[in-house]
């Protein structure tokens, strides 16, 4: 035995300083990255958004906002769906599997704070979502020759939706028994949020009351931010009568959408904190 093992616990206790929450979160994110790359199913969730993009390529293209076509706007909205699929699909699948195999329980019992565990997962979803979004955006720019008007606003939209959707994924896990049922069950919110997110059909087509409701769900605001960021047009009140605006005015008009997304992130975080189950035997 080395000398370290024989130190009295009291002496050890005085020397204890846990690594900061941020450090722990980043460390877990690093491991999440390794595991993501080694896990085939995770790669599937990465390919899924690309499959969505292919049929969009063949939709008829009509100019609706200046030089921007309906297809451009659909593409912009579809960038938000990357985080949607990855967040809901990957987070629910992996955390349900880890709860079942007692990984989550062991992490908690060995002293890792819950925020770091959730944070590590959120970071890795955000990272892969942003990377894929940049890749797809690059392809769109190369094909269309138009640069996004406000890339920062566009990426903030992608980021906020990735965070919110990861939380939705975490929130699915208490409702399911294992990873398989998580995979099946996660399709329901995934489809529901995709349909109301302005990807399959423009939100403009919805009747006004429905559109108002949808704008308070956690995807449509991000889709509109993405479209605004891509086109530079103020699309928050619909395409009709939307004007091209400068950066400041565009961000000012985006504030309500950012607010709705942040509110969702807070609400979803509180729900995760309240309902997340760490132990498969937990009642």
């Amino acid at each position, binding site marked *: *035995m*080395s000398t*370290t*093992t*024989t*130190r*009295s*616990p*009291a002496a*050890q*206790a005085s*020397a*204890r*300083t*846990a*690594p900061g929450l941020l450090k*722990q979160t980043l*460390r*877990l994110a690093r*491991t999440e990255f*390794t*595991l993501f790359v*080694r*896990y085939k199913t995770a790669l599937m969730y990465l390919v899924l958004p690309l499959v969505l993009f292919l049929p969009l390529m063949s939709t008829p293209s009509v100019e609706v906002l200046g030089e921007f076509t309906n297809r451009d706007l659909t593409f912009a909205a579809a960038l938000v769906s990357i985080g949607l699929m990855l967040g809901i699909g990957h987070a629910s699948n992996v955390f349900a599997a*880890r709860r079942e*195999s*007692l*990984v989550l*329980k*062991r*992490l*908690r*019992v*060995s*002293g*890792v*704070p819950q925020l*770091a565990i959730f944070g590590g997962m959120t970071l890795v979803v955000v990272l892969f979502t942003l990377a894929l979004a940049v890749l797809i955006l690059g392809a769109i720019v190369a094909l269309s020759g138009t640069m996004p008007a406000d890339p920062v606003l566009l990426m903030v939209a992608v980021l906020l939706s990735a965070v919110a959707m990861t939380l939705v994924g975490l929130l699915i896990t208490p409702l399911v028994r294992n990873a398989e049922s998580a995979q099946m069950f996660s399709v329901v919110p995934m489809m529901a949020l995709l349909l109301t997110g302005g990807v399959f059909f423009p939100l403009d087509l919805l009747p006004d009351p429905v559109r108002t409701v949808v704008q308070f769900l956690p995807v449509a605001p991000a889709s509109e931010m993405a479209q605004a960021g891509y086109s530079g047009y103020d699309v928050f009140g619909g395409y009709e009568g939307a004007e091209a605006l400068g950066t400041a005015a565009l961000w000012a008009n985006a504030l309500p959408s950012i607010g709705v997304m942040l509110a969702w992130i807070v609400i979803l975080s509180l729900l995760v904190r309240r309902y997340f189950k*760490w*132990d498969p*035997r*937990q*009642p």
Partner: protein
Amino acid sequence: MVVRDLHQRYGDFEAVRGVSFEIRPGELFALLGTNGAGKTTTIETLEGFRRPSSGSARVFGQDPFGQPAVIRDRVNAVLQGSGLLEDLSVEESLRLTSDLAASPRDVDEVLRLINLVDKRKLRIRQLSGGQKRRLDLGSALMTRPEVLYLDEPTTGMDPEARHETWKIINELKESGVAILLTTHYLEEAERLADRLAIMHRGEIRVEGTLSGVLAGWGDRVSFLLPSDVRTADLPDVDGAAIEVESRDQDLWATYTVTGGDVTARAHHAVAALIAWSAEQGIVLQNLQVRGASLEDVFLQVADGAADLITE
């Protein structure tokens, strides 16, 4: 660790019914019992995954529910299942634990301790059950816990690994760690426990030091009953209960001696019986004297005949 009158109910079912015990630094307390006796539920309450239905659990004087920050860095556990990320290698897993901990041990030191140095690059899913179990213990040691919960820590290990593990656990105990152990291997409890309790149907039926528990159970003196001796002719011996049972068509008499001077009671009983046999001019065939084993006690408790022991 202090548990006072702990109750845990799931709906109508009461898994734990009024359990109390305490464990001090440097002490190992073993919780034995059949499957479903409530051992794991008790540990899970101490680990902070369950709020007691009534009664209390305290670790370092704190309510452990929800793993509050003040005690989080000072406890750790080997769970009943492994709980390791199987796509990581042995070393990656230990490094992760080390980087997340407040005052971790050296990874190489732990690898040597659990004898997995040559397996360090192997993915965890490639390890055998016993190797995984060693890594579970190693992972728990990484954080230098002062309180350690071991839920069947040697399941799946070969005898050699089990002995190595016992050595590690004994060293932890000597360094002042308070340990709560559950196990199905009674020998493990006999080797490691300073005190032990046997749980059955949510209650602690027997509790004490190993020698105390065994002393309460008594020593047994048995012999083959000669064919010309009737049961009623058997002599009374002070402090002993007589039982006659048939084994393979023979009748065996067993005197169970309880109470009194624990060290000398078997001697006195045998002396009395030898004197009686000399008087009768018979031989006590196949005479056996044995102390109770933990297994005797355990089986009686598991059968629900706990009253016999505590009387």
